[in-house]
């Protein structure tokens, strides 16, 4: 049972929502603070104007968000799955940059299909080889992308 008042309200609020509101408040403050470095102009209409308007609006909205009770149940986030996917993508980009398209794509597709999607090894090899060939034809031969 939630008590009356701001502090009980904030304590009751979902952790993720609180973090987001506070992060946005800090972010909007940083946006505004950064504008002091921008050059001034005549009649205050210059590079500072629009970012300052945005920072003020974002600050006010984030403050409002902090005090809104969002009853909707938010979906669970599988952070492990997300991090693994992001790391595999970064790995693909780094290998692509340091080797070539074929090597990086074979590694990426096989890791994804066999390691993440749990496709059986024969199917993984088949899809990886046919897929890499098809992508090579599309990107490097037909579209002539310099990879």
């Amino acid at each position, binding site marked *: 049972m939630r008590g009356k008042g701001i502090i009980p309200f904030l304590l009751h609020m979902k952790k993720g929502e609180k973090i987001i509101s506070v992060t946005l408040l800090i972010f909007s403050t940083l*946006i505004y603070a950064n504008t002091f470095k921008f050059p001034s102009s005549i009649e205050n209409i210059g590079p500072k104007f*629009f970012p300052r308007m945005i920072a003020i609006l974002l600050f006010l909205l984030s403050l409002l968000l902090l005090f809104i009770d969002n009853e909707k149940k938010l979906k669970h986030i599988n952070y492990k*799955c997300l991090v693994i996917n992001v790391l595999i993508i970064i790995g693909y980009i780094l290998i692509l940059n340091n080797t070539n398209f074929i090597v990086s*794509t074979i590694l990426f597709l096989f890791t994804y299909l066999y390691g993440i999607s749990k496709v059986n090894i024969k199917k993984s090899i088949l899809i990886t080889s046919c*897929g890499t060939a098809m*992508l090579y034809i599309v990107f490097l031969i037909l579209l002539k992308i310099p*990879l």
Partner: protein
Amino acid sequence: MSVLNEILSQVLGNMDIAYFIILIAGVLCGLIIGALPGFTATMGVALFVPFSYSMNVQHAFAFLIGLYCSAVYAGSIPAILIRTPGTPAAIATINDGYPMAQKGNAGQALGLACYASVFGGILSAIILMIVAKYIAQAALKFGPQEYFSLAILGLSMVLSMSGKNMIKGLISMTLGLFITVIGMDIISGYPRYTFGNVNLLSGVQLLPVMIGVFAISEVFEGIMKEQKNEKVKQKLENIVTSVKYLFKNISLVLKSSILGTFLGALPGVGAVTASFIGYNEAVRTSKKPKEMGTGRPEGILGPESANNAVTGGALIPLLSLGIPGDPVTAILLGALMIQGLRPGPQLFAKNPEVVFGIYASVIFSYVAILVISLIGIRYIAKIIEIRSTYLYPFILIFCIIGSYALQNSYFDIYVALIFGIIGFFMRRYDFPLGPFTLAMILGSIIEEKLLISLSLSKGSFLTFIQRPISATLLLITFIVVILSLKKKKIR
């Protein structure tokens, strides 16, 4: 008639067999993307736009328009067969499409969706051809004040896109506006929020952000869901003969198509809203309203004609004013800019063949959709059975290579990935993506036109209400805001 003559002479003169092959390829890609739940028309267009750089303009738009139109239609296939919309625009079709399929009339339902989509799409293309030229001519009188006010009107649609949580919608919008200020200031050239990174001097590119937000985040979302192995069990018969219901309900289809076109032309409204309005129109005008939701033909004809009519409608503000009506047309704006073209009145004057090529692509796409669907819907429906887990790595590769291909830059890939992560969290925490992308599209127009207007008027904000067109647009904005707030209060 003169518009038709112009199209025929400009377009047919520039078409070759490659044009039609590429158009059909786009339609087929769109059918696959639209039919697969979890993949959207926006994602499809975002994935393929970077590759359009290597094609000539006519071919590029033949592919992209074909993909766009067919993806919006194909979302109805899984909606009818497995009660899961392939694209958000097909949600309303489930109401009567799925019950009709359950009664053993899946083929009839798919046929109705096809006929309605083609009718809506072609009618919207005809309205586009008639109206766009006049709006472009009127826009020649627009100064920076009018463009600013029009962009603000577009931004006010955020309130209707935000759903239940208006604050989160406005926050998404503000974050989108912030992205547009990164880079060199248009007037003074001062680098803002670049932190010394030369890659950010020209700002954050729209296309990698779109790829991240609409494609990569969608893949992350899909990976987290439990995969169901869906099988298409229904027999697909009476597909072609379902056209009789189209003629029996012609006034509904006509009204929904016109409504869809109009809604598509309003920035920020989109195919989802249009499909629900089309469905409401079907309920309102049905001879058996109590049977709606049990498999009535009008329950498919209404939403499907409306959502596909949006495709032509959304091209009206894009081509005539250079202001996109929805995320897909924002991406198409990017595609035009890749080709060195800027939509708006100048496009009609300097590159009419591009404009007429786009008109023709919309019409030919719907003709191709009709033919391919009536012949091959049984095979297209099988696409639903493909496990998405097989496709995700390929989608990611398309995202990565597509982001790279824009400027041959690895930086853009990281931008796409970062926005993929941001987009994923925005979805999870219920921050709508529509306002974010709309603000990204309109933000740079707003700032540029605001600063130019204020420097012309020596800092006076009265300039926006002293000009009649600008004042009218701002008045309409005010009315839209009041109505949206009132509607939220009633809810």
